[in-house]
C-alpha cells in the first residue's frame, strides 16, 4: 500500500519537477523576449533618428549585410510584432503552467498525506 503510493508519489514528483523546469524555462524565455523587445524598441527609435543618407547593416553571421533603411525599419517593426506575439504566447503558456503546477501541487500534497497515512498505518500494524 505504502510502497505503491510512494511509487506514485515519486513519479508525480518527477512530473512536477519537470513542470517546474518548463515553467522556469518559459519564464527565462519570456525574460529574454522582454529584453529583446526593449532592444528592438531602442533600435526602432534610433532608426527613426537616422535619415535616408545613412546606411544600415545587418550582421548575419560574420558579415555585415547592407540593408535599406526603410527595409530595416520594416523588419524591426515586424520583429517587434513578432516579439510581442511571442510574449503574449508565453504569458498564456505561463498562466497555463501555473495552473497546472498548482493542481499538481495539490495532488502531490494529497498524495503525500496518503503516503504518510499509509506509512503510519503500516507502522501501526507492525
Amino acid at each position, binding site marked *: 500500500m505504502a510502497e505503491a503510493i510512494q511509487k506514485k508519489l515519486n513519479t508525480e514528483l518527477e512530473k512536477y519537477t519537470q513542470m517546474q523546469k518548463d515553467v522556469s524555462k518559459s519564464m527565462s524565455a519570456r525574460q529574454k523576449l522582454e529584453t529583446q523587445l526593449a532592444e528592438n524598441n531602442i*533600435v526602432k527609435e534610433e*532608426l527613426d533618428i537616422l535619415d535616408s543618407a545613412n546606411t544600415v547593416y545587418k550582421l548575419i553571421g560574420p558579415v555585415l549585410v547592407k540593408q535599406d533603411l526603410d527595409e530595416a525599419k520594416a523588419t524591426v517593426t515586424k520583429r517587434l510584432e513578432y516579439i510581442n506575439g511571442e510574449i503574449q504566447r508565453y504569458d498564456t503558456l505561463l498562466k497555463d503552467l501555473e495552473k497546472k503546477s498548482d493542481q499538481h501541487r495539490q495532488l502531490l500534497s494529497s498524495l503525500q498525506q496518503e503516503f504518510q497515512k499509509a506509512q503510519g498505518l503500516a507502522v501501526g500494524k507492525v
Partner: protein
Amino acid sequence: MIKNEKSEINMEDPGGVTRLREEHEKVVKDCERRIQHWEKVSGDYDALKERLKTLPDRLSYDIMVPFGPMAFMPGKLVHSNEVTVLLGDNWFAKCSAKQAEKIVDHRMKYVKNELCGLSKTMTNFETRVGMVKDWENMVTEKGDYVDIREVIGKNDATVTKGKRRVAHRPNSKPKLETVLDLEEENEGSGEDAQQNGSTKSFMTQEELWARLDELEKIEELQNEQDSLSDSADIGSEDTSSSSSEDRNDTDSPTASNGLFVKSHINAPPSGEMKEDDEEDHSLPTIYFSHTVEPKKVRINTSKNTTLKFSERKELKEHSKRKKKNGHQNGHAHHEVHKIQTPADIYRLFVDVRNGEPVPKKSILKSRSRENSVCSDTSEGSAADMDERRMMGRSFSHDESTPSDNSDSLTEEDSTKGMPSHPAGKFEAFSGTVVEKDSMPLAVPFLTISPPALPTIMERKLEEVAVPDVEAPQQPVKRVSKFKAARMQQK
C-alpha cells in the same frame, strides 16, 4: 517581488520575519548593483559622447591600434566623422558623429530611465527593510513597539480551547459517576465508606454531604422539640376548627403526639400510623407526615387487600418503609433527614415510571383528585383511576356506615360534581357496593376494619384539605427538578 509578498503574508514567526528582511535586503542589494552597472554605462556613454564631440574636430588621428591582445600598432584614424553604431539586435548603422551623438543621447535617456526606476525600487525596498526590522523588534520585543494584545489574545484563545476540550470534559463526566457510586457506597456501608472515599477530589464533596446530614439531623431534633412543645396549642386549635365528632374520634388517640396533632392542620391521616411514624422516624413537619400517610392508605386500597385493621396498619408501615427504602438504601436515620428537604416532598409525590419521574396528584385532594383523574387522562392510567375511585368509595363506605357525618361529606361531593362517586346513595346501602366487581374486595375491608378512623380521615380530608387544595401541591411544583433528581439518585 511576488515571492516577497507571499513571504510577507506567511510571516508570523521571528524566523520568517528575518527571512523577509533578508529577501528585502537582497532586492535592495540587487538594485544597488544594477544601479552601479547603469551608472557605469552612463559614464561610458558620457565619455563616448565627449569623444564623439571632439572626434570630428580633426580629419585624422595618430593612434595606437590594438593588434591582438598583446600588441599595439601605430596607425592612423581616418574618416573621423564616420561612425558605425551597433543599434542592437545585430543592426548596424553607419552614421556621422553628430548622429551618433544623438543616438548616445537617446541611449542616455534610456539609461537614466532605468536608473530612476531602479533607485525608486531601491528606496521602496529600503523602507520595507526598515519596516521589517521594526517587525523583528516587535516580535523579539526588543524595540519600543510591542503589540501585546495580539500575542496575549492568541495565547489565551488557544489555551482556553485546549483546557476546555482536554481537561474539563473528562473531569466532569467521571465526576458524576464516581460521585454516585460513592454515595451509594456510603449509604450501603455506612460512614466508613465516606471516610474511605477513593479520590481526594470527591472527598471534599463527601465531607460536605456528611456535614449537611449532621446539620439536618440537628435541625430535625430541634424541630421535633419545638413541635412537641407547641403540640398542645396547635392540636386544640385545629380540632376546634374541625367538627366535634372528629374531635371525639380522633383527638383521643392523637392528642398525646404533638406531631400528629400538628399534622391535623392540613389533613388528618389515620392516627395509628401517625404514632408509628413518630416512633420510628419522628416526622417533624406537617406536610411530610401527611403526604406520606394518605399515600399508604392509597397503596393499601390499590392492592385491594382485605385485612384486619391491625394488619392493615402493619401493612401500611411496611409499605411505607418499602417505599422509602426504594429510594434510599434502607437506613432509618437517612429517612429522618430525607423528608426535610423539598426534594423529599417532591419524591413523595412522584412515581417513577419508565425511569422518569411522573408527579402524583396530591393526596390531600383525594376527592378532587377523583374529579381531575376523570378529566385528566394524561395524569394517570385507567388502573390508577380505578384505584383512586376505589379508595374514595371505600372511604365513603366507612363514613356512611358508622356515622352521620357522611351527609355533609356527600353534600360536598355532590357540590363538587362527582358523578362517579355515589357516596350519597351509600347511606341507603347496608355497606355493600354493587357498582364494580372489584368492590367486593373492598366490602370485607369495610366490614372488618373499625370504621371510625377511616371515616374521620376522610371527613377531615374533605373539610380541612379542600380549602387548602392548592397548598400542598405548590411546594411540589416549586421543587427544583435538579435537586429532586439528585435526591432521587441518592
